[in-house]
């Protein structure tokens, strides 16, 4: 073991997997997290359960945190941010600032796992009224309600009986600039729809969509059960207008199957917001001097078969910092980035 460590930046699912893997490979690892707690967005945004298996987010992520804390050679720095980077692959110096002041860390390699943030539907405020109408919420708002076991209309505290999800809010949109599909929202919306139907058995739950993108096993793990077992109503055609109608919301769109205009009253509307690079991801790219793609995510240097190398040798990226990713993607790329980082560091040590 050298006196260097692998520095992992970001303590969400990808960073936790990366740090755990480095430690399991027998090298030292320093995990840097700007928040005061580990777990990343799923914990910070109060996810109730993880897609697609509906296991508790706190328990699932808590298990990997506990595993990491129990491994030798692990240092975890919370409320800490990276200030600057010197050196080169195999011999980096990472300057960080945290509760104990500033310090330098000798790093053989770096893994960036700074993640994503939810698209702010206020940017489409005319369309959906996210900030105007209390009963228009986003996926993570409903997640928090599900976690609390208290799904209510924010406007009046009543139990909603008609709830709809609107897909592709902030994704697949040239005007917004997010031309990509955010990959997880179809599955997450269907998962939340199942949870709403279970919590409020007499509710009617609708999902308005352009096309349901339930890739791989999610099709039969979430989509089909939501429709066939939980009676979630899927309607092809996106809502483009929400109007206040007395104390309800009138959603208007087109039923593209029937080729007719559609107007439906809802108690609550859930916007299936997509993924954007987090503020941390945007910032760290500048600090470390690595390229971003046109959407602000970290650029992959050698696609498609090398999924974790960045434009700077010795720096790898993982998880949703690379672009829209589900938890399985995050865990896979976290492990991959860790393996590549350890391999690079060992080569550097061997070369002296």
């Amino acid at each position, binding site marked *: 073991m050298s006196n260097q460590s692998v520095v992992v930046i970001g303590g969400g699912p990808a960073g936790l997997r990366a740090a755990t893997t480095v430690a399991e490979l027998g090298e030292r690892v320093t995990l840097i997290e700007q928040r005061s707690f580990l777990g990343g967005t799923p914990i910070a945004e109060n996810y109730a359960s993880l897609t697609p298996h509906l296991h508790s987010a706190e328990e699932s992520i808590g298990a990997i945190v506990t595993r990491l804390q129990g491994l030798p050679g692990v240092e975890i720095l919370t409320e800490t941010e990276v200030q600057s980077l010197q050196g080169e692959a195999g011999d980096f110096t990472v300057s960080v600032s945290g509760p104990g002041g500033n310090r330098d860390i000798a790093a053989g390699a770096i893994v960036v796992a700074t993640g994503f943030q939810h698209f702010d539907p206020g940017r489409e405020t005319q369309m959906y009224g996210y900030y105007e109408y209390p009963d228009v919420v986003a996926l993570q708002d409903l997640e928090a309600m599900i976690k609390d076991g208290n799904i209510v209309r924010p406007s009046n505290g009543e139990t909603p009986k008609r709830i709809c999800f609107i897909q592709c809010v902030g994704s697949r949109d040239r005007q917004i600039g997010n031309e990509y599909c955010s990959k997880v929202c179809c599955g997450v919306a269907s998962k939340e729809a199942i949870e709403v139907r279970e919590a409020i058995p007499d509710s009617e739950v609708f999902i308005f969509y352009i096309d349901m993108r339930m890739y791989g096993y999610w099709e039969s793990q979430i989509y089909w059960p939501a429709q*066939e077992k939980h009676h979630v109503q899927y*309607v092809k055609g996106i809502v483009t207008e929400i109007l206040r109608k007395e104390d309800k919301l009138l959603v208007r769109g087109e039923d593209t*199957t029937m080729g*007719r*205009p*559609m107007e439906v009253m809802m108690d609550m509307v859930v916007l299936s917001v997509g993924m954007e690079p987090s503020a941390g991801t945007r910032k760290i790219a500048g600090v470390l001097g690595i390229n971003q793609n046109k959407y602000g995510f970290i650029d992959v240097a050698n696609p498609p078969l090398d999924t974790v190398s960045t434009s700077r040798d010795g720096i790898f990226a993982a998880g949703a910092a690379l672009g829209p990713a589900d938890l399985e993607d995050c865990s896979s790329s976290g492990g991959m980035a860790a393996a590549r980082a350890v391999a690079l560091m060992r080569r550097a040590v061997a070369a002296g």
Partner: protein
Amino acid sequence: MPVAGRKQPPVAVEKEEAVVTSTISGREWELPGMWNRMFEPRVLRDYGSKGFAEVIKHPGAESLEWCYGCAKCVPVCPVDVVGEYGPRKIHRKVQTGMDLFSSPDLWLCTTCANCLRVCPKEVNMVNIMPAAREVAVGEGKVPNELQDVFEKTFRYGNALGENPRRRHAWTKDAGVPVRVLPSDPSPVDVLFYVEDYWSYHPRGKQAAQAFARIATAAGLDFAILGPEEKTLGDSQRLAGEKGLFESLMEDVAATLSKYDFTRIVTPDPHGFNALKKHYPRYGHTYEVEHYTQTLAPLVDKLSFPKAIDKKVTFHDPCYLGRHNGEYDAPRTLLAAIPGLDLVEMGRCKQNGYCCGGGGGGMWLDGFTANYTNERLSERRVREAAETGAEILAVCCPYEVSRFEDAAKSTGNEHLKVVDIVELLDYAMGGPSSIGAAVGS
């Protein structure tokens, strides 16, 4: 406006006619209402899961809700081609408040199973339709012409309302002896289950006679039930009269239990389907063959002194092909006939186009005409004519009358509709009832 939880769904008022009084003459004019509805797309408002809940609680109808709207069913649905109806549209209409049990859509499906063949979600109209129709039948919401057939079937044991004692009248002119089991109940190999249209329809009787001659020539030991035969009732079942089907089945099973036979051979793919798939569910299991399956292995034993130098196309019956997987036996028989040139239609075998007769459609032509721009049989006949064929060969008793009518109404009288059994009989030198069609 509807208000969730305590809403009054808006009811679209659609007047079929309006009476307008002239301000000049005082005269009243009747105006049909449909023209002005065409200008305004009606807004869909009443979405919900309650419509599905009403339908899927009936066993067999569960899969209606599974549709995810891919639309694969639409291009292959024979009814969609000629009208507004479509399998996936039923899903959306029920989702938007349509009462399926009162809707004309309930009666347009012919249960041809072509949508099920392509459906990734296995939405099974072949099960959904009879289950939903059973509810409508129970509520007395049945088109009159279908109700009439139910009553005839109930009273006479056949869909045509014919005298049961005349079931075997066709045997007189068969030219070969045909054993009738009630008169001679000794054991027999083949129980020839003639079914309704070969027993009573003029062209069907000729086909039955042709079969008797071929079976005799092939050395088959066969007999019929004669006056004791009742329809197997599969189309009545699919049209929603499960009770009638079950009562027929008990009668049929009781009759069959009296006699000693090896296998049942029937010309009717619908009856074949009932015996093969549905009778066993009630504990009545028989060895059953469609007549083409019985004759196909025997063609080498038969001699065909006469050629049929004609271009022939073949229509796959839905209930022989798609429902029961038999595509080869009819073609083996056609290939055995000297001179015959078989040309396939674009839609054939697994993708065969329905004649419109299945699932009760045989008895709903008047009703269906109100919702389609042409009959399925007419559509099919035009496809057959486009191949350049002179003969449209069939092997389902429903089809001869359906396609003959359609050939006339579409101006394709030159296309002769002939059962395969009649073609075989002619080629074997039988007394020709179809000489005009096949003679050179």
